[in-house]
């Protein structure tokens, strides 16, 4: 492809993803594809009850089955001396932190809670043996609704957390906000349920553990978005092995959406099993297990109110949320409905008063944690829905009310009332571009005409902002993170001028092997083909924090850029020496160093690299070889923003919602690879549309999961969706070397509100203020006929 190998122009071009041929042809190796000699297999017996006392476990029949090596329970783990604690990695003040062990001890707290494990010679036996373990359960009442769970008398998930409240958190200024409401001309008010979602990564979670009892080394291949975090937490909490004796490797990982960030019990159990039996042990989740154990997303019950003055200016926003934590506190769960949620309540708006109060609530359900967008989709949905409702109650067009309230481009940096400081933006620019592209005024005319024919068209805006690129370490540390959020990179130029880049990020579908090589190709002027990118092995690259929170480009990419810059600096020193010139007289262009005005007498980067490795003639004080390591800690979050617009037609006789058009104008800063950015936007929108129209995890009153299979849980199919239209504005990030922001979650964050706003707009003639997600045909039909 043209331009592919030309170093300088590579940044910003739509190079095809180099990881795709292997993935598409089925040659990529995932965890479950790996085979070690002597591998045995682990299966996990899981509670069928939402809440039950475990009186006793009889595993004798299972143990007697031919091929079974062992059956183990919590008592065995305890006896082994392994700490066995599943940690939470984000602490909030006064948070209740109940014990979470690798297997449930005396109580099962959600359907899917691990109770015992089998290790057997083959998978069939391992699964057969599960049916021969007899657990004496005493069923107890369970509860799944996060608001009802706080009522007096509701079944308790943990006795140590009265009313099931894990934490009681707030941000903003309550008094100031109450005062703002006192002076309001209009008040918009909505009750909003943010539906619980199941991640559905294509590859189920899996682990292959190989413990060497002689060296004390554990090699753990697993489905992870962040091998170093898993190593750290396993060393500190669950396994208690020395950190340098644990090597966590992420082979090809088939999607995560957050679900492979967390430290679940299962991968640690697999490692523990390998320590017990002295052989490699493999565990691969069935799809049923992924539904009941992969951390779910969202699950908020919220009341929101916006105070508006007579001119449509926002005066104050008040938000009260009950956020489900599920049965235990998952790794980063406490951060999601707090610092990743409450801090975004200002949206793109100049909002003088905000107060957001959140209860984190235990429920007898699968734990809830980060899922694509993590907190920001929930916040954006609240803000963009209440803004539309504010427009409705004040009789102002939704585009116009947004325009009146945007933070204006000359107002940056803009400190919000909820801790974040926005560094840059041009919100009206994106809105105007999107309105023009969709033909907003024409649509309003068509809509009016259609209504008189009994056809209900609707348009929905979502002018979103999000904070990603996690994150300044000191900031997140002060907010409770038990982790840093900088990122590492090594840029190693080999003697022949070929380059290997190591990143502490850990891609699982994002295309880092392509985009990170593009960054380096441009920085070093080396052909793109000469650069390889390696990630996902705690034994190979320096500590990193992995891939989630749309952080890889902004933090990992910046680390790579800064390591590449160090390489160029060192190479310049050597080149100056070789050219017998002063460093400041050298130019560096397309990979060549030369004295200004004499480009024909150049030392190319490969020339310099060879000399650096030979070390026969290096300047004084310069070490041999040519590589550099960087640890990049960002100065701030990055703030992608934009306008998404959905157009729907609602069928009044069935309630069916047809998504007819979807247009996104995103500002993700400088773009490394437009095709990959478009791909992320498309996937993100599909996922957000999934939440808004189709997907939902349904628990019954007793907290049994009813939507536990793909027959019941509606992930959108291609034919449910129109072809998305995408465009961009470019406001570079002012504080990182590449000017990049993040794009991995923007689509998921923006789209639910756009779709629901469109449905509510279509139903305006019926006076319908809100319909909860997923907006199913039946809900719409009921709203029309109710």
């Amino acid at each position: 492809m043209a331009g592919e190998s030309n170093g300088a122009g590579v940044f910003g071009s739509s190079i095809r993803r180099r990881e795709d041929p292997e993935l598409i042809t089925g040659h990529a190796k995932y965890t479950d594809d790996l085979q070690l000699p002597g591998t045995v297999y682990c299966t996990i017996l899981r509670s069928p009850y939402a809440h039950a006392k475990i009186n006793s476990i009889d595993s004798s029949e299972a143990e007697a089955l031919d091929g079974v090596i062992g059956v183990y329970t919590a008592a065995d783990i305890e006896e082994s001396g392994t700490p066995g604690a599943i940690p939470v990695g984000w602490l909030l003040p006064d948070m209740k932190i109940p014990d979470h062990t690798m297997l449930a001890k005396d109580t099962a707290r959600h359907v899917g809670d691990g109770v015992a494990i089998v290790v057997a010679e083959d998978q069939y036996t391992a699964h057969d043996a599960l049916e021969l373990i007899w657990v004496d359960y005493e069923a107890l009442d369970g509860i799944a609704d996060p608001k009802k769970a706080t009522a007096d008398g509701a079944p308790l998930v943990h006795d140590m957390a009265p009313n099931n409240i894990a934490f009681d958190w707030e941000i903003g200024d309550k008094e100031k906000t109450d005062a703002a409401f006192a002076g309001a001309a209009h008040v918009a008010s909505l009750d909003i349920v943010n539906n619980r979602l199941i991640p559905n990564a294509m590859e189920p979670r899996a682990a292959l553990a190989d413990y060497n009892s002689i060296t004390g080394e554990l090699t753990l291949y697993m489905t992870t978005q962040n091998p170093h975090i898993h190593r750290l937490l396993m060393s500190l909490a669950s396994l208690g092995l020395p950190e340098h004796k644990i090597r966590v490797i992420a082979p090809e990982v088939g999607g995560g959406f957050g679900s492979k960030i967390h430290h679940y019990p299962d991968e640690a159990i697999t490692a523990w099993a390998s320590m017990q039996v002295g052989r490699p042990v493999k565990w691969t989740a069935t799809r049923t297990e992924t539904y009941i154990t992969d951390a779910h997303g969202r699950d908020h019950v919220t009341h929101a109110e916006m105070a508006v003055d007579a001119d449509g200016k926002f005066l104050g926003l008040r938000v009260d949320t009950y956020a489900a934590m599920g049965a235990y506190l998952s790794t980063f769960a406490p951060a999601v409905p707090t610092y990743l949620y409450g801090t975004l309540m200002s949206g793109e708006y100049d909002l003088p008063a905000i107060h957001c109060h959140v209860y984190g609530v235990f429920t007898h359900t699968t734990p809830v944690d980060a899922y694509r967008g993590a907190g920001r989709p929930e916040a954006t949905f609240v803000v963009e829905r209440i803004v539309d409702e504010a427009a409705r109650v004040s009789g102002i067009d939704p585009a116009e009310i947004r325009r009146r309230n945007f933070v204006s481009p000359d107002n940056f940096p803009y400190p919000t009332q909820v801790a974040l400081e926005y560094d840059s933006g041009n919100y009206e620019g994106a809105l105007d571009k999107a309105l023009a592209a969709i033909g907003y005024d024409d649509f309003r005319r068509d809509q009016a005409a259609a209504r008189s024919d009994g056809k209900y068209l609707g348009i929905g805006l979502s002018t979103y902002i999000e904070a990603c690129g996690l994150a300044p370490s000191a900031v997140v540390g002060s907010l409770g993170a038990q982790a840093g959020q900088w990122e590492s990179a090594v840029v190693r130029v080999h003697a022949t001028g070929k380059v290997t880049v190591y990143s502490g990020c850990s891609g699982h579908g994002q295309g880092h092997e392509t985009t990170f090589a593009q960054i380096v190709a441009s920085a070093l002027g080396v052909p793109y083909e000469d650069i390889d990118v390696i990630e996902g092995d705690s034994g190979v690259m320096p500590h990193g924090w992995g891939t989630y929170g749309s952080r890889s480009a902004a933090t990992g990419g910046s680390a790579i850029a800064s390591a590449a810059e160090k390489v160029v600096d060192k190479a310049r020193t050597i080149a100056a020496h070789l050219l017998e010139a002063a460093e400041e007289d050298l130019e560096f262009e397309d990979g060549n160093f030369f004295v200004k005005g004499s480009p024909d007498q150049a030392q190319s980067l490969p020339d310099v690299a060879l000399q650096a490795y030979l070390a026969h003639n290096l300047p004084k004080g310069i070490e041999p070889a040519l590589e550099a390591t960087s640890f990049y800690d960002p100065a701030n979050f990055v703030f992608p923003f934009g306008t998404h617009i959905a157009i729907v037609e609602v069928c009044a006789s069935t309630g069916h919602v047809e998504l007819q058009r979807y247009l996104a104008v995103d500002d993700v800063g400088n773009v490394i690879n437009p095709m990959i950015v478009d791909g992320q936007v498309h996937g993100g929108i599909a996922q957000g549309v999934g939440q808004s129209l189709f997907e939902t995890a349904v628990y019954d009153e007793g907290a049994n999961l009813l939507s536990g299979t793909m027959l019941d849980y509606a992930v959108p199919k291609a034919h449910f969706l129109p072809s998305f239209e995408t465009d961009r504005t470019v406001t570079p990030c002012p504080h990182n070397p590449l000017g990049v922001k993040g794009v991995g979650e923007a689509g998921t964050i923006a789209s639910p509100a756009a779709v629901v706003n469109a449905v509510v707009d279509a139903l305006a003639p019926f006076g319908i203020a809100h319909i909860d997600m997923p907006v199913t045909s039946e809900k719409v039909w009921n709203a029309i006929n109710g």
Partner: protein
Amino acid sequence: MYPSKFDYHRPSSVQEAVQILSANPDAKVLAGGHSLIPVMKLRLATPSALVDIGRIDALQGISRSNGSLRIGACVTYDEIANSSTVQEAAPLLAEAAGQIGDRQVRYRGTIGGNLSHADPASDLPAAALALGATLHVTGTGGSRSISATSFFVDLMMTALQADEILTEVEIPAAGAGTGSAYAKWEHPASGYALCGAAAVVTRNADGSCASARLCFNGVSSTAVDASAVGASLAGSDLSDGAIESAVNDNLSIPDATGDMFASAGYRQELAKVMGASALRTARDRA
């Protein structure tokens, strides 16, 4: 997938197959496997043996003679949807088969498996009812024929005995003046019929309705024949208004299914909308 242990048989004749079935009471017939394998994967079905009927020649093939269409039990949806013989003689069946699942499902799933499984949400039972199909079955005691009306007994229950195999589906070929249509409301997750309306309409020379039949998948524990709707349309002019009132006044689904996707009441409403739509299309094609 890790089902529990089972024996596997691949007989080459129907006789052999029914012998194995009668000797193994816990055995199950395996056709396309697209309903049976998923439940075995979940260990909701744990047959002691599978009797794979996929290589029995007598269960293959589509033919038309003496005014009737005959389809072997192991004929796939893809073959049915694309067969010109079926498209001419029973276009409703081709249309319904073409709307099942996705391509992979249509390449594997069979008409015999679909009808024998009697999943109320599957797409072929209503067509079989509306077309007045006769199901030919063979067991150790010999062969018999069952009308579609008496074949579907209850949720996942048919008139088949444990040692019987459905061998062939026979359908009277469509005569002149007959039109049909299948209107499916797809379940957003499974893709099965949340409500599938199968309509067959025959017009007299003057355009009036000679007969009409409207049957449904997905709305009750078995496929439903809304015979009152059909009866009330007979003799009508088949105008949109006539169809609308026939459906609104006469359609009631006994024991309509209600679940987390659609309440019983909503299914009734959908059945009206989908039923009227299928009837209008069938009329236009008649």
